[in-house]
């Protein structure tokens, strides 16, 4: 077989099956309780989907567009809120300037 390993293929970084970099990684099998933040983000995504404001495929596209270093550093639901934000801005559901203003206001 000419291509016996997956190193040289232009795979996307979320496409992790069999990737050598993670093969020595131990799996943390302990239960991790979800935080209130996690549950809220999960519920928000469901409500937005039910209202036709975004799809799960757009959520995934948005997660996949997070640069690799951040993708690996952010928690699962931190990636979700990043993707939800990007999707709603792209769709024009919310305005980025409004959101920025709201964040600046909340920072004080």
């Amino acid at each position: 077989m000419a291509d016996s390993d997956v190193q040289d293929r232009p795979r996307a970084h979320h496409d992790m099956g069999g990737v050598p970099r993670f093969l020595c990684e131990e799996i943390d099998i302990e239960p991790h309780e979800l935080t209130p933040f996690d549950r809220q983000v999960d519920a928000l995504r469901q409500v937005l989907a039910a209202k036709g404001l975004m799809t799960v495929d757009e959520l995934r596209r948005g997660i996949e567009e997070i640069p690799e270093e951040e993708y690996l550093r952010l928690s699962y639901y931190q990636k979700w809120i990043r993707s939800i934000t990007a999707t709603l801005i792209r769709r024009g559901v919310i305005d980025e300037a409004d959101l920025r203003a709201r964040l600046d206001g909340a920072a004080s």
Partner: protein
Amino acid sequence: MNVREAESGRLLAALTSLLSERGLISDDELAARMAITESASPKQGARIVARAWTDPGFRERLLADGTAAVEEAGVFMRGLPPLGVLENTSEVHNVVVCTLCSCYPRAVLGYPPFWFKSPGYRARTVRDPRGVLAEWGTAIPEDVRIRVVDSTADYRWMVLPMRPAGTEGWSAEALADLVRDSDMIGVTQPKASL
């Protein structure tokens, strides 16, 4: 403040308040969704498994059409991805992974566990399933084929484990108590004495 660099909790709060002001979402709707999501736990799946072990007709229907069978058993499936059920036998042992993301049969198992979403699990399971199962202390005999199921698209997959030896005559309720989420993803096997 750069939106992309905002701390996640503040981003959620800002987003939620903007969407609420526009009348696009409400606190009640979010609370209702959370309640529905909490109600789907591995206990649902365990009840389905125990029924399949004790009701051969249900087992047939479950393997033929998981969605219809769990709906018949009272699980709310409308608008959710179809459910496929993979049966473990003395010849094949199934283990489910989602290498691209975190596809998980949430209707019957609830929120995906931390490990299911981890890079280690996602990367290793398709290449070294026996090594991954060993992390749970699970050893599948050499003459049993492991079937790794990479859940990539429109279905969600759940494993129907083998009924443990020594449970003859047990009630469905007692059997359901033996079944954990990890048994229904295939990284562990239920045992009569936990």
